[in-house]
């Protein structure tokens, strides 16, 4: 109760509501009583703060009222953005958002495009190079001169084939009567096709069957110098071959000498799951196209055809069963009905060197112009 009275007095003093004599008395009290003095100082500060608070609150509410009034009276144009101003306002406000959205859209587009590019199958020609050797003219002329010199040396009566080869690949005999198999991409652009064996002898051949889809071509030797061979030491395998089975190839990537290569069957299908072919791991170069792929029994399991440009050591071979298909197609023509293919190899069980020794005479370089 006492405290209430004291505070009341202090407040009256601060507000200046005291009579002069009362005020004098109170000021004397302040001087003698430190506690009262302290209370006066503290309470003055407090009341100041409180008044300040009150004034600010009142001003704020006045300002808010005014804002509403003035807007209603149209004296200030708050929130009344129209036409261009509105567009400018919206643009200014949302341009950051728009910019971010546009960036995200852009990045997404680019990412999707890249993904699509990455995931979608490419045209095979882009990634896979046909291993046909496009010999340049200079090489061809040199070769031609070499042949001429050879012929002169041997005093051979055989006419020199003097057309420069534009394409060369490899082919192999499948029937001793003079039938060979190669890739259709080796011969498809050539008017005249020749083959040359390991000893340098050349024979003229005719393309009798050309399957561009399967990339298999059958050639027939039509040259008087060719003597039919009674027996071919290797067979053509009809069944599929297992992964990891060791294989070897023979071909003419070097333009003059037969080249041996070995590896293994790495996948049962070809490029991007192509069921026509299979993937093998072997060193292959332009010129190997059309060459035979043998398994360890000396059976032909495929025709070496393409290699993936972007991957090292991924080479594809046409599965050997398509040789049979091609022959069946060819047999529809009555003049070719006598073709006969071995399915078993006589070199089976021999070691690799002996096998190759026996086989190499039946593998030819195929040249086209």
């Amino acid at each position, binding site marked *: 109760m006492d*405290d*209430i009275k004291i*505070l*009341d007095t202090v407040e009256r003093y601060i507000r200046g509501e005291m009579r002069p004599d009362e005020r004098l008395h109170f000021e004397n009290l302040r001087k003698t009583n430190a506690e009262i003095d302290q209370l006066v100082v*503290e309470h003055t500060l*407090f*009341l100041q*703060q*409180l*008044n*300040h*608070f*009150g*004034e*600010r*609150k*009142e*001003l*704020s509410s*006045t*300002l*808010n009222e*005014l*804002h509403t*009034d*003035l807007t209603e009276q149209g*004296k*200030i*144009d*708050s*929130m009344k*953005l129209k036409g261009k101003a509105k567009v400018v*306002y919206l643009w*200014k*406000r949302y341009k950051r958002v728009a910019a971010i959205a546009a960036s995200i859209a852009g990045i997404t587009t680019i990412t999707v495009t890249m993904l699509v590019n990455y995931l979608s199958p490419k045209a095979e020609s882009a990634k896979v190079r046909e291993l046909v050797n496009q010999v340049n003219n200079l090489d061809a002329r040199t070769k031609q001169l070499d042949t001429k010199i050879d012929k002169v040396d041997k005093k051979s009566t055989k006419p020199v084939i003097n057309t420069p080869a534009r394409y060369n690949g490899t082919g192999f005999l499948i029937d001793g009567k003079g039938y060979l198999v190669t890739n259709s991409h080796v011969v498809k652009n050539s008017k005249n096709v020749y083959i040359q064996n390991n000893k340098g002898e050349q024979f003229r051949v005719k393309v009798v069957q050309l399957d561009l889809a399967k990339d298999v071509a059958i050639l027939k030797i039509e040259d008087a110098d060719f003597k039919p061979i009674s027996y071919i030491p290797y067979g053509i395998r009809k069944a599929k071959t297992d992964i990891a089975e060791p294989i070897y190839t023979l071909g003419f990537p070097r333009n003059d000498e037969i080249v041996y290569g070995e590896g293994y069957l790495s996948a049962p299908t070809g490029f991007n799951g192509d069921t026509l072919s299979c993937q093998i791991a072997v060193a292959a170069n332009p010129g190997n196209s059309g060459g035979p792929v043998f398994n360890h029994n000396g059976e032909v399991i495929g025709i070496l055809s393409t290699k993936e440009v972007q991957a090292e050591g991924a080479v594809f071979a046409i599965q050997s069963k398509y040789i049979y298909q091609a022959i069946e197609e060819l047999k529809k023509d009555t003049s070719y009905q006598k073709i006969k293919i071995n399915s078993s190899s006589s070199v089976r069980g021999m070691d690799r060197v002996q096998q190759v020794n026996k086989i190499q005479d039946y593998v030819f370089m195929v040249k086209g112009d």
Partner: protein
Amino acid sequence: MTQENNEKTLLEGLAASDRKAIESIYRDNFNMVQSLVINNNGSADDAKDIFQETMIVLYEKARSGSFELNCQIKTFVYSISRRLWLKRLQQQNRFSTAGDSMEPVVPVEDELAGHEQRNAEFEMMENAINHLGEPCKSLIEAFYLQKQSMQEIAARFGYTNAENAKNQKYKCLMRLKKIFFTNYKNGNSDG
């Protein structure tokens, strides 16, 4: 000359919380501040906030004894608003180069420093009063802010007599002072 006098009258009116004077200043300056804010990444609501805070700064300046405005109200208002808005943009990490404008600006650092101090005090008092709870809050507001007499308060709040109301008000005031001064001392020692 007449304009200077006119502005002086306006500021005196503002200091006295004269509604007409406030309205006049409001009407003459709001659009300028609104375009400043809106042209610099703000909304109409931001503009209203900034302008009203500027009005409070102007009011505080008008109220202070050492009041002497040595530029036009318009320039002062623009300078304050610009600084306040830049500061808010910085706090929101949306800083843009507001300020490339034709309007003249005057240095307002002192005013804003004082304003911030008063802002902090205002918030302390607001917090303290909000902490009180009812009926203390209304009681204190009625007596100290609305300056009602104890008799009116007793009638309004249903106390049997003014003496009871006074007792109650005393208890509330003691609590409020305790809360406020705790914060005030903490705030001062922190800051």
